């Protein structure tokens, strides 16, 4: 009896060792490829929020080429900021920076771009989240993110945006929330405002300093 139990444990241990080894090997072998894909994806998102995305059918090399020409990344106090330049590669047209914060179920990752005067929003995108598909997950949909395009950045009570019940958003700093996803909408409002406040202060200080 003891022998059987011991065998079960040893057997399970060895089998687990074998399969974790196998999975790790496959992972290590493909790591570089996956990293590259994610890199391209991020470049696409940054170009997209800055309104610089080329046609959807251009090759990955072309995306990288445009990115390298028009985007320069830099670190300010440990925060990454992407500067976007015009087609000539020298006139500054705006800044892009990441959005990050807790959603309703898990962390939400996004990207936002503002103009060079820090007055208007160029575009916004959410690309990684664990919100409920069809409810909170709709933050990635075009109709939701399109609402932010061209909005002026004027803080009211230290908040840039208010998410209102769907269909009732009217003022410049209001956008429609998502039906059935109050939790996600509130979380997005919060992370949007806190990220904007932080990065805009950083950018303003940086712009005046140079």
């Amino acid at each position: 009896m003891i022998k059987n139990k011991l065998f079960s444990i040893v057997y399970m241990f060895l089998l687990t060792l074998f399969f974790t080894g196998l999975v790790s090997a496959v992972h290590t072998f493909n790591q570089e490829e996956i990293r590259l894909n994610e890199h391209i994806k991020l470049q696409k998102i940054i170009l997209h929020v800055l309104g610089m995305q080329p046609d959807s059918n251009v090759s990955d090399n072309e995306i990288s080429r445009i990115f390298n020409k028009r985007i320069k990344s830099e670190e300010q106090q440990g925060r990454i900021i992407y500067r976007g330049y015009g087609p000539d590669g020298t006139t500054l047209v705006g800044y892009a920076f990441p959005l990050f914060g807790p959603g309703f179920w898990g962390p939400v990752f996004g990207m936002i771009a503002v103009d060079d005067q820090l007055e208007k929003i160029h575009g916004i995108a959410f690309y990684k989240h664990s919100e409920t598909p069809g409810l909170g997950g709709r933050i990635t949909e075009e109709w939701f993110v399109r609402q932010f395009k061209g909005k002026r950045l004027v803080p009211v009570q230290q908040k840039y945006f208010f998410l209102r019940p769907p269909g009732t958003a009217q003022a410049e700093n209001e956008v429609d929330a998502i039906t059935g996803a109050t939790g996600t909408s509130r979380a997005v409002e919060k992370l949007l405002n806190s990220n904007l406040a932080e990065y805009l202060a950083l950018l303003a200080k940086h712009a005046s300093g140079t």
Partner: protein
Amino acid sequence: MARSKSRKIIVKGLWKENPVFRQILGICSALAVTNLMINTLIMSISVVFVLAMSNLTVSLLRNVTPPRIRMMVQVLIIASYVIIVDIMLKAYLPDISEALGPYVGLIITNCIIMGRCEGFARSNPPWPSVVDGFACGCGYAVILFLVAFFREFLGFGTVFGMSVLPAQWTRWTIMVMAPGAFFMLAGIIWIVRSFEKKEEEQITGRS
């Protein structure tokens, strides 16, 4: 003789014991990944691969695995293959990997796979187990393709992304959304089962 046995297993997987419309298994993913045929194709290949490989592994280990811990072993095996598929998709088909989202990972919990390991591979030699996994995977794939074909055709007017209907075609948006999948799947199960009505009547006691 071996060949006729394989054929029997294939017929079972595709028709007589089809996992989707007979056993109503794997419905979650059948509903989720069928709005575009290309997604369905990749999902089906993944499921066939995982099913065949898990069946093979479980069958190879069937005489050594202590029965008491067999479920644990099966989950370990299935999960490993699914993670491998997931890594491969992320590395070589990133767009499709994103479209399928969590459903690749959820193959682990697809009842078809554990069902075949437990119901077939555990008590059969390796070769028939691989055939069984392959057949059941194809049985799953066929139904998914049927659902996906109608959903994409009516919902987008395309087949595998190619336009086949005139531009003025009014898209049945509901087919692309979740309810469309329910209608389609229910419709297919209804049609298929009415073919088999006689057979069912003979064994009414079962249902």
